[in-house]
């Protein structure tokens, strides 16, 4: 593996230049000794060349969208247009302080205002806050809004959120963080909400229902009206996890089909890059009467055409979830993407995402078990159950993990595996609309090859990956011999 940057340290080397101090002064006169750090900071000393080589070497160890297909279900690994990167680096965006007087940031406010509006239109919601910086924070924000709604109405007892067992882990985690209790609903045999089960748990203390739609199986929840009716009947609110919005653009407006609150993942649907785990952006849209609960500030337009930060609803607002206005720079990228695609373009995005997913599903369903016999939306869940049955010996038994790792050898990223939890050995495959049929075909062929390797050459799967920078890693060791910083490593080396 690549050496760490710490192993490249050489005392006295440096990778920066700074202007000479142009005023007189003495640190010791500025800061009393007792406030001063004892000893020198042990940071590495390396040259700019060292740094470039190091991080370029690391970069070459990654799989990434512009290297190859990345069918990671639920993550919408679509192409991130280069123009986003270029334009978001305008000094008029990069070098602007969040507390600047509003007359000096009219451009930023205009852009945010338009994005609020465009996302409102796309979702069919009354308004949208751009403050949450990730999907999970969007969930938290939306749930806080639900909380605020019930408090506002004096319904302090409404502290339960119902969600299906196919929900993403952040959903229940966000419920807890927002002070709710979670009721998990078992999905029915079609992978959808079981209306009877739902009826059984509905009660007056239900605050809302959280649904991903299309759900994490890639299936559109067609009972959504019924569910909404039931939830609304106890004055609960319908929350949509919009992680899968890439299936619905211009096809369904969630705000028009019974949802009251939803979050977007701009880093999925709206092409902002994932950055190896972030920054993303998780705006939240709500119906009209919930707007007053959204975080402060919102961006509004004066009659004279100027824009301003509006905190007039701060009495009712849930407050703030971010120091400033969220991930502005990601919001710029999403704005560009929406402006370039327009209404027809966005609809084509979803159409093509859906076609691509169904195409792969149809081509693979003879080789891998697919639980639900229904056209999928932008993604689908296959599983490794057929492969698992091939061998009884637990050492030989092929798991979805083996299939995933074998895909790495073939130059593809693996699908999302073991999620949703309700499908054993799940492989969630999301191709996105930016991939061509040609790419899908090479992936399909690789999967078919793996299906036959599973029969004829199972070691190729059990041992995979073979051709990656490292092979399977010992996760247990990573926990047991905790090594979360270079000093830990050095210590372990010494001890060994």
């Amino acid at each position: 593996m690549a050496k760490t940057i710490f192993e490249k340290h050489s005392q006295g080397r440096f990778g920066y230049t700074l202007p000479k101090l142009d005023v007189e002064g003495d640190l010791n006169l500025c800061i009393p000794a007792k406030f001063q750090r004892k000893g020198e900071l042990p940071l590495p000393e390396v040259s700019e060349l060292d740094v470039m080589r190091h991080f370029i070497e690391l970069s070459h160890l990654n799989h990434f969208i512009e290297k190859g297909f990345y069918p990671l279900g639920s993550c919408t690994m679509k192409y991130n247009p280069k123009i986003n990167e270029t334009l978001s680096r305008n000094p008029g965006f990069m070098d602007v302080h969040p507390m600047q007087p509003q007359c000096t940031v009219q451009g930023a406010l205009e852009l945010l205002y338009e994005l609020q509006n465009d996302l409102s239109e796309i979702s069919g919601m009354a308004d949208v806050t751009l403050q949450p910086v990730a999907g999970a924070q969007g969930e938290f924000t939306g749930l806080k809004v639900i909380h605020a709604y019930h408090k506002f109405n004096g319904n302090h007892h409404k502290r339960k959120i119902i969600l299906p067992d196919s929900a993403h882990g952040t959903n229940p985690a966000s419920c807890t963080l927002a002070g709710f209790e979670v009721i998990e609903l078992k999905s029915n045999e079609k992978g959808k909400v079981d209306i009877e089960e739902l009826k059984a748990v509905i009660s007056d203390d239900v605050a809302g229902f959280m649904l991903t739609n299309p759900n994490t199986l890639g299936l559109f929840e067609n009972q959504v009206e019924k569910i909404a009716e039931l939830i609304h009947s106890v004055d609960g609110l319908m929350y949509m996890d919009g992680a899968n919005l890439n299936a619905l653009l211009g096809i369904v407006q969630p705000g028009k089909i019974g949802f009251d609150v939803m979050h977007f993942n701009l880093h999925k649907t709206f092409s902002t890059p994932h950055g190896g785990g972030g920054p993303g952006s998780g705006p939240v849209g709500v119906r009209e009467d919930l707007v007053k609960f959204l975080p402060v500030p919102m961006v509004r337009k004066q009659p004279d055409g100027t824009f301003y930060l509006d905190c007039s609803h701060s009495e009712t607002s849930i407050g703030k979830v971010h120091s400033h206005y969220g991930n502005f720079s990601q919001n710029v990228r999403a704005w560009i993407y929406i402006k370039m695609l327009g209404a027809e373009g966005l609809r084509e995005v979803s159409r093509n995402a859906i076609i691509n997913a169904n195409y792969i599903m149809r081509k693979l369903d003879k080789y891998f078990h697919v639980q639900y016999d229904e056209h999928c939306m932008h993604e689908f869940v296959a599983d490794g159950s057929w492969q698992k049955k091939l061998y009884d010996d637990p050492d030989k038994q092929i798991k979805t993990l083996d299939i995933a790792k074998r895909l790495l050898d073939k130059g593809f990223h693996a699908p999302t595996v073991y999620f949703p939890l309700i499908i054993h050995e799940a492989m969630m495959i999301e191709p996105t609309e930016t991939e061509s049929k040609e790419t899908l075909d090479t992936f399909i062929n690789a999967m078919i090859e793996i299906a036959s390797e599973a029969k004829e050459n199972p070691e190729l799967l059990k041992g995979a990956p073979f051709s990656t920078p490292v092979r399977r890693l010992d996760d247990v060791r990573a926990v047991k011999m905790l090594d979360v910083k270079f000093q830990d490593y050095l210590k372990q080396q010494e001890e060994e």
Partner: protein
Amino acid sequence: MPFISNTDKERKEMLEAIGVSRFEDLLVNIPEKLRLNGLLKLDEPLSELEVTRRINCIAAKNRHTEAMNSFMGAGVYDHFIPAAVDHIIIRPEFLTAYTPYQAEVSQGTLQFIYEFQTLICELTGMEIANAGMYDGATAAAEALLMASRATRKEKVILAGTLHPRFYDVIRSYTEDIGLELVIAPVKDGVTDIDGMAKLIDTDTAGVLVQTPNYFGCLEDMHKIDEIVHAQKKALLIAAVDPISLNVLNSPAEYNADIVIGEGQALGNKMNYGGPLFGFFASSIKLQRSMPGRIVGGTLDVDGKRGYALTLQTREQHIRREKATSNICSNQSLACLAATVYMCLMGRKGLREIAEQSTIKAHFLAEKIGKLNGFEIAYSKPFFKEFTVKTPIPASEIIEKLIAKDIIAGVDLAETGMENGLLIAVTEKKTKAQMDELVKALEEVNNG
């Protein structure tokens, strides 16, 4: 359509392969009446050239710090960033990868996070750091939740000198889950330590103190250490400016249990306030209570060193409603920028930045302190930021100076100081720029 790969011909072939005659057949599961009739009401699509012109025109309506003489700080700082940083973070290898779930093809991301954790531990003197939080404010909120989890207590004490935005976010993160927030009294720009001591009791999960605090003053963390740790279980949470740690006490020196802060100043542009990122470190004994992602070193089946996500049983994708946090996507690329930045600057460069900022800030403070009608608000030691008592409301001063292409600082009115102006100085400020500010302030008072 841009960014959609397939052609009409390919689409047709695919629909055939799927076994449907038209796209709409794939939507059978969406009840007709739920579908949108017609098109979304959005602007006509713009081509790349048009969107470029539109963006340039919008951006030109913002006034930025390269074209203005700005003294704004309050947590988001305009420090020097070597050009090399952006050349790394723009690489699609880092930019377009997902969270490193498939470790074998994500070693680049995993290793930089490991290095980031190491650097944060070095800066803070802590034993374990995570892969970053959304921002400093959410990191503060999560630190309080962690303290509560770790101690099984529900009262937390916040210094009254905390950044108001931190306070806001803490409030929304804690109010619905029964955490009791108590604000400690303030005296002469810093925490009233005796006053704080009285608030700490056996119910106290943790005490959060920011240093330098919102007014720029250094808190006496050694004393605070004493009063906090006088309560056996209570945890001391320090919120710090990472740049300051190159001259100020390492939080380990005052026995902080958890250290968090806003990380933007480490190699990230201000970007109108986002992306920011929170760093998060603690003593090793708190590891299982930590929120967020953590990367650990390990070995592969061939005995080769590699990196993987570790201690995952804390996280939402495993523990769901019992997770230590709901965080999933974080601010990874901003942490990469910070990592590259810290490596480029190294120990000497970061030290120099901290020293220059300090000395320049003190130079400016002295000059402003001598101006008629202006006064340095507090006699406490400070780092690169300080509060000025102004003869007229700070908001008016700021407004007047904008006409001269100067942003004088941050208005402290919301803290109750209508005549309080918070001035930050980084190593980027030249003597000429500071002199210009002094002159402009002088003129404000005279005219």
